[in-house]
């Protein structure tokens, strides 16, 4: 039986891991990872522009360490799928990038990850040097499983200042102001809010904030820990009603489901002045900086999600990705080396490196270096926001385990474009597996 299972797994995972082996072999660092008794630790990260800093840290680490770190990258949005196919096999890394929360829950359940209590007992700095609201995202079942390793990504309401000025309005501070602003902008023939609904997770951002503002963070906390009844509560329905009110007011236009953020559609709407606002993660800044530097210099505005009068959630609460994390595999052969490597995540070099490319680390020493960041004003604004936030809600699709993602995405899209009503949305959310 054992052999059959192995055969089965080999066959199914075969294709994916074959591709992985090839790509891992291709990006330098040959040699076995966990197995084989080599003097290496493999660090697996999401492949993008931030790899520059990660590579630099690995080099720094390798200068003094006997056990060498090897950086492996998986490019693109397939990171999570590929990670899942290799993590229980021979190519499993020693340390890997993730989003905390539900994204690592299945690995914890499968007993693959190492709780970091021992590391922290030996070096309390691994915990005390990070902002608590961020560090807590990677706590699963009361045990810490991740060390923050990139920048924080709160979702902010970005705006085109020129468009707002032309329409004679200012960025809204409350929900009612938002509705008035929408009316004024529509009268001018401008789509009030750009939305890349084709991506679905962008639509989800509106739900995250509405639920937080109307029902307070507790509702989602309960829901994600298994109390499905909260989805049917009066608060939940009220959040959906308010959202519906905004949609029906024409705030998003009529073709948002055909627009995407990922191919630059919705940022183009904002930058070209065809839309006035976009609710997006803080990476919107670097996205726009890349494509429309002139617009960013003169007209890009940013602010928090509006407050909702009479709602249970404070206006300082945030939603988004608190940060990314490094988690450690239980069967790593070099736990001491890994612990040493993780210490670099609160080093001055790490903070400076991340800030220089526009990321905002969530270490307590970040404040010292804000002046040296790519845009000090923006970084300082974000840092203060994250520091004073009473609650930082991890994106719903990351807070739930991956098995829930598709259902969440379909539910938010269908409710938003009117294919389904509140009852269907509630039923869909109640069908999700708990984290």
């Amino acid at each position, binding site marked *: 039986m054992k052999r*059959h*299972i192995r*055969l*089965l*797994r080999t*066959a*199914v*995972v075969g294709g994916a891991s074959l591709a992985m082996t090839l790509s891992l072999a291709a990006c330098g660092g040959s040699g076995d990872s966990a197995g084989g008794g080599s003097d290496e630790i493999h660090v697996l990260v999401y492949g993008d522009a931030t790899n520059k800093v990660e590579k630099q840290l690995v080099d720094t680490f390798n200068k003094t360490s006997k056990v060498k770190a090897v950086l492996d990258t998986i490019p693109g949005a397939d990171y999570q*799928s590929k990670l*899942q*196919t290799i*993590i*229980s096999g021979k190519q499993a890394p020693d340390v890997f990038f993730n989003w905390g929360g539900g994204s690592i829950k*299945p*690995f914890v359940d*499968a007993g*693959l990850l190492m709780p970091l209590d021992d590391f922290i007992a030996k070096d309390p700095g691994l915990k005390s040097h990070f902002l608590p609201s961020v560090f807590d995202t990677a706590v699963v079942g009361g045990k810490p499983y991740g060390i923050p390793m990139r920048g924080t990504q709160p979702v902010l309401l970005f705006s085109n200042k020129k468009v707002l000025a032309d329409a004679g309005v200012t960025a809204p501070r409350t929900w009612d102001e938002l509705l008035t602003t929408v009316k004024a902008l529509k009268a001018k023939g401008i789509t009030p809010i750009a939305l890349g*609904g*084709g991506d*679905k997770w962008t639509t989800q951002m509106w739900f995250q904030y509405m639920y937080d503002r109307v029902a307070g963070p507790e509702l989602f906390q309960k829901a994600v820990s298994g109390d499905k009844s909260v989805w049917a509560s009066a608060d939940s329905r009220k959040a959906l009603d308010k959202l519906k009110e905004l949609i029906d007011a024409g705030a998003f*236009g*009529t*073709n*948002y*489901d*055909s*627009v*995407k953020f990922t*191919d630059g*559609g919705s940022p*183009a*709407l904002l930058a070209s002045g*065809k839309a006035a606002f976009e609710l997006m993660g803080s990476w919107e800044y670097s996205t726009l900086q890349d494509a429309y530097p002139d617009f960013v210099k003169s007209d890009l505005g940013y602010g928090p999600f509006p407050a909702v009068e009479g709602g249970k959630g404070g206006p300082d609460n945030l939603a988004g990705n608190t940060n990314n994390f490094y988690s450690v595999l239980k069967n790593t052969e070099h736990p001491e080396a890994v612990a040493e490597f993780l210490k670099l995540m609160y080093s001055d070099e790490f903070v400076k490196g991340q800030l220089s490319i526009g990321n905002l680390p969530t270490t307590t020493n970040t404040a010292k270096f804000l002046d040296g960041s790519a845009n000090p004003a923006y970084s300082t604004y974000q840092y203060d926001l994250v520091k004073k936030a009473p609650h930082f809600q991890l994106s719903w699709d990351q807070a739930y385990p*991956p*098995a*829930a*993602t*598709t259902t969440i995405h*379909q539910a938010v*899209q*269908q409710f938003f*474009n009117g*294919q*389904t009503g509140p009852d269907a949305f509630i039923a869909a959310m109640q069908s999700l597996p708990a984290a």
Partner: protein
Amino acid sequence: MTTAAVPTADSTEKSVRRGRSSRPATGVGRPGFAWAAPAAVFFGLFALVPLVLVVVLSFTRWNGLGSPEFAGLDNWSRLLDDPVMVKSLWLSLLLTVLGVVVQTPISILLGVWAAGRQRNRAVLSAIYFVPLLLSITAVSVLWRAVLDPNFGVPSQAKWLFGDGNLFGTQTGALGVLVFVSTWQFTPLHTLIYQGAARAVPGVLYEAARIDGAGTVRQFFHITLPQLRNTVVTSMILMVVGGLTTFDTVLILTQGGPGTDTTNSAYYMYQKAFKSFDFGSASAIALLLVLVATLVSLVMVRLTGYDRMRSTMEGV
């Protein structure tokens, strides 16, 4: 064809052996089983073995971590109750039928035209075949950009596209999927029809012309009947391609809006690599195999493919 080939295996081998030892080959023998052996081995290794494993996997619960655990008929009963699954099968069939209905007439006409001797024909044909050379991924990304409601063609042609919400409605999204695959795959089928149209004996046309038949009558009474076998071949390719449509869905619509373009192949991918539910994904895969088998059996019956005989002399 295999039935015709099997009995000749011995004679082929003998003739080959004789050819080697004494005199040069008197001619190539008929295809024997030995010729098919490499293909058979590969087919077994990469088609039959995985198929069996998928059957096993469909009775288990497995998220890709650790070992699969036996789950009995759980995946199957859940799947048959799943409205998205039923919808996805219909969508697969719908996409297939639409593909065949749209692509067949276009590629027959183009293929027959391309088989002629008109001026500039070669140049134009070469242009037609360009889409075939492009990767479907690139093609999908390209069309997604062209059809962007705010910056693409719809923003310039509001009289035709309205607000341009092509990917936000089921009709629009299905339309785009059919259009893009037609754009990409018509050249392939045109190529097949071109070859077949060129093989039609010229004497038939000469005779028809003498009898006073015009171009249209020649087309319907000579060309089309002569293309019959080719139509079946081309349609089988289209059906197989249609049922397994995946890349265009992944890039153009991601199964949306909602589940409106989630066909079975994409739903299987979602279950396996988004939800990490390999048991259900395997069950969907098997359902798709069943449906495809059923469809091809029906096609074979309806088209009389099973009764077709090769017209090649001696085979």
